[in-house]
Structure formats: structure tokens, C-alpha cells
């Protein structure tokens, strides 16, 4: 009976993971196809990768996606972290109000956030393009930073900053040397979330962009109208980058911890 259950478990998990991963694997596989077919593999070639690199519009989209994600993450992390710290010291009514407002973009469907921003930008006659896309990304990333940092701020001892300042630290030093290091975990989670949310976004970018500014998602959306193995090549690269990042994020902290522990053991032994 037990054995049967175990076998079922493994079969079930395998089927689920096949369901998740087959499309991804197929995409990657056919990016190395020498013909345009997405069903018959006629030979190994890197020609779609060459086409990808020589395509100006795709390279530009990659540039837009990467730079918007970096700038939006930096802005959202700074704004979100400072807000989370400030908020915990505010009166409860303000705190609750801001946190509730902060939840709106998280709970609201993307498409509603998107059209809201689209109407906003056109109401103030802002030209749609890179800047509007960046502002929109900061707008939807910041709430995620706040929700990941705020719980860590609440767990802090409220006397920490006072202690630092009593010992002669300026408020700025208390913030950077005492408070921020203690929030590290929440801030890292916020950075990871912001970057991937921004890099992944299609719906909001699609509605607030203009003047031919496209990110990766938008260019894929516009190219899917016909089969195009260049998208497979692009997918493969994006997927590899994401998987490598995730593996690093999941293993490096453990490695660093082990290493610093070893260092500490060593220094203790000395």
C-alpha cells in the first residue's frame, strides 16, 4: 500500500512537471533548428541566434527591458525601503491608510492599473515612451518592496536607532549603519521581486508605451502573429538568464553563510 502510494506520487509529480516544462524545453530545442519549422528538427544550427543578434529591433527591446528593470528596481527599492521605515513610526491611521493604498496595485488586475496609468499620462499630455514605461514600472514595483520590507521593520527593536544616536551617530548614520543592515533580507526580497516583475511585465508596459518603444514582452507579442524561431532563440536566452539567477539566488546565500561560518570557526580556533 505504502509503496503504491509512493509510485503514484512520483508519477504524478513527473506529469505535473512535464506539463510545466515541456513547452519551455520544446521552445529551447527548436531554437537550434536549422529550418523554420517548429515541429520537424532538420539539423543543428545557430542561425536564429545570429538573426537575433543582428536584429536591431530585438536588441533594442532587450536594452529597454534590462534598463527599465534596473532603474525601476533601484528607484522602487530606495522609495519602498524609506517608506517602510518611515511608516512604522507614523500614527496608526496614516500607517493603515498608506498600507491599504499600497495594496491597491497589488490586488487590482494589471489591466486596470495599466489603463489607469495610460489615462493619467495622456491627461497630463505626457508623451508615451521610455519615461512613461519607467514611471509605470516604479509605480507597480514599489508596493512589492514595501510589503517585503515593512514586516522586517516592524520586528526591529524601536530603541535601536535611539541607542545609536545616543552613542553619537547622526540620524543618517543610524539609518545606514544600524537600521538598513537589519532589513537586509526584506530588501533583497524586494529587489528580486521588483526586478523580475519589471522584466516580466507585459500588460502595463503595453498600455503605457508609445513611439515605438518596446520591451521584450511587447516585441514577442507583436511577433507571434507568424512563426518565428528568432523568438525561440530569445526565449532560450531569457529563460537561461532567469534560471541561472534563481539558482544563484537560492544557493549563494547558503554558500556565503557556510563560508563565513567556516571563517568564524577558524578565527575562534586561532
Amino acid at each position: 500500500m505504502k509503496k503504491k502510494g509512493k509510485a503514484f506520487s512520483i508519477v504524478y509529480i513527473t506529469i505535473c512537471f512535464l506539463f510545466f516544462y515541456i513547452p519551455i524545453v520544446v521552445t529551447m530545442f527548436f531554437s537550434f533548428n536549422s529550418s523554420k519549422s517548429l515541429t520537424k528538427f532538420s539539423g543543428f544550427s545557430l542561425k536564429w541566434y545570429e538573426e537575433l543578434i543582428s536584429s536591431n529591433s530585438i536588441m533594442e527591446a532587450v536594452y529597454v527591458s534590462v534598463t527599465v528593470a534596473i532603474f525601476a528596481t533601484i528607484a522602487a527599492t530606495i522609495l519602498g525601503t524609506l517608506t517602510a521605515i518611515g511608516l512604522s513610526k507614523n500614527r496608526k491611521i496614516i500607517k493603515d491608510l498608506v498600507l491599504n493604498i499600497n495594496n491597491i496595485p497589488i490586488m487590482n488586475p494589471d489591466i486596470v492599473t495599466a489603463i489607469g496609468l495610460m489615462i493619467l499620462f495622456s491627461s497630463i499630455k505626457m508623451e508615451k515612451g521610455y519615461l512613461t514605461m519607467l514611471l509605470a514600472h516604479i509605480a507597480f514595483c514599489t508596493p512589492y518592496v514595501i510589503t517585503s520590507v515593512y514586516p522586517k521593520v516592524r520586528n526591529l527593536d524601536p530603541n535601536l536607532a535611539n541607542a545609536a544616536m545616543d552613542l553619537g551617530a547622526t540620524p543618517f548614520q543610524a539609518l545606514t549603519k544600524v537600521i538598513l543592515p537589519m532589513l537586509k533580507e526584506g530588501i533583497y526580497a524586494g529587489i528580486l521581486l521588483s526586478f523580475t516583475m519589471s522584466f516580466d511585465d507585459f500588460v502595463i508596459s503595453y498600455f503605457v508605451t508609445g513611439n515605438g518603444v518596446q520591451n521584450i514582452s511587447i516585441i514577442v507579442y507583436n511577433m507571434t502573429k507568424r512563426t518565428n524561431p528568432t523568438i525561440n532563440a530569445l526565449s532560450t536566452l531569457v529563460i537561461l538568464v532567469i534560471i541561472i539567477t534563481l539558482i544563484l539566488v537560492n544557493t549563494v546565500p547558503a554558500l556565503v553563510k557556510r563560508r563565513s561560518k567556516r571563517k568564524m570557526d577558524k578565527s575562534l580556533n586561532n
Partner: protein
Amino acid sequence: MRHFTKLARPYIIWAVAIIIIPLLLIVLYSVTTGGNDLVNIQFTLDNFKKIAEPIYLSVFTKSFRLGVITVVICLLLGYTLAYIISKFSEKAQNILILLVTIPMWINTLLRTYAWISLLSDNGIINTMLNKLGFDSVPMMYTDFAVIIGLVSDLLPFMVIPIHTSLCKIDNSLIEAAMDLGADRFHTFWKVTFKLSIPGVLNGIIMTFLLSISTFVIPKLLGGGQYMLIGNLIENQFISVGDWNFGSAISLLLAAVILIAISLMKRADREDTEEE
């Protein structure tokens, strides 16, 4: 620490400008006609009345039906997967959960695009069916394709919260139920499942919210004529240009979802308080 109260101020201003004002603009558009030109502004409820017209109403019922089907499939598949994963050793669980989350980090668009090459008429599945001697089955541009796309996109959102709830369950409760004579089914139904309800609710909200408001998956897998709420909104803003009607639909969608979430959250809170 009083020094730091000011740090929240920039965000309060920013939030009003970029969260509150856009919402108010949607409300304004939904009850007016003729753009936001203040001279020609006219208040009306026609935009909402238009939603009740049969063509648009059918879009709503179709979205709702697809959302429910997606949620049910995700719940059945996802609960089983989360339950099985929770029975593994902690180390194996971490790896399995990482494997469930990886697809979430990969662009929805790229993953949906990948399904096209599997499902299309001369795609991989049909080529394989032909080789086995079966006829091709048209799958692209059907409800089936859209549901496959939605389920594969949303399943992780069901698995993760349920797995989190299942992990929190104290094993001694299950042992106690067994000791007290409950059979495996009753132990599962009355103890395990009951204690995992917060995760289930969370999963249901997330998958329903995402499936009812999507427009990429139905557009790529359902074809240009396939209309769900998301596509209808996109249509009004991008091709038709009726921003007022589009705003009215968006407002309704946002209201339904926000109310649903707050009701579920309240139920969740009452549930935890009871215990």
C-alpha cells in the same frame, strides 16, 4: 526614531499621484462621455448600461465560466501536487517547490508562445497523433487551448499557498485523529483539508483574479476573435477608442475583484480567530 517619520512623505505624495489619481480618472471616464475635455464633459450612466447589452454580457459570462473552470482544474491538480510535495523530506520539498516556482519567473508571454508550437494544427501534438495513426485534432483557437494556457500559467499560484498551509499543520493533530479512530479519509477531510483552507482560499483568489483579467493568453491561444473581459477592455482602449466604455468595464472588473478579495480575507481572518 521620530526623525524617520518624514521618510514616508515622498511615497504618500507619489501614491496619490500614481495610484489614487489614475483610479479617480477611471471613475471619471466611466461616468462621462466625450473625453476629458472639461468643456464638453457630460455625466451619464450609459457606459454602465451598455455593459448589460447581450454581446457584452456574454463576454462577462464567458470570462466567469472560464475563470471557474480554470480555478477548479488548478485546485484539483494543485492540491494533489501540494499534498504530495508536503510528504517529502524538507530538502526534497525545497527543490520541488523551487521547480514549481521557476516557471512563474519566466515571462508569461514566452510560455504562452511555447504552447502555440505544441497545440497548433501541424504542431507537435498533432504530428505525434498522425504518426500513431490518429487524425489531427484542431486545438488552437478553442476553449481547450485557452484553458490549457491558463492552467499552466496559474497552477503555481495554487500550489504555493496550499503547500505553505499544509506545511504549517502540526503532525501530531493528524496522529491524534488517527489514534482516535478516524480513517485516512476522515483524517484528511476533517483535519488536513480543514487546516489548509487558508491556503486554498488564497490560491482560489489568486488564480481567479488572474484568469478573469488576463488578455494575453486568450489572444494568443484563443485567436483574435476570442473575447474575455481583458480583451474587451484592450479593444475599447486600443482599437475602438471608446475610453469611457472601457473605463466602465475596468471599474466593474476592479470592483468585483476587490470585493471578492476583501470578503475572502475577512472569512480567512474569522477562520483563524475561531481557532
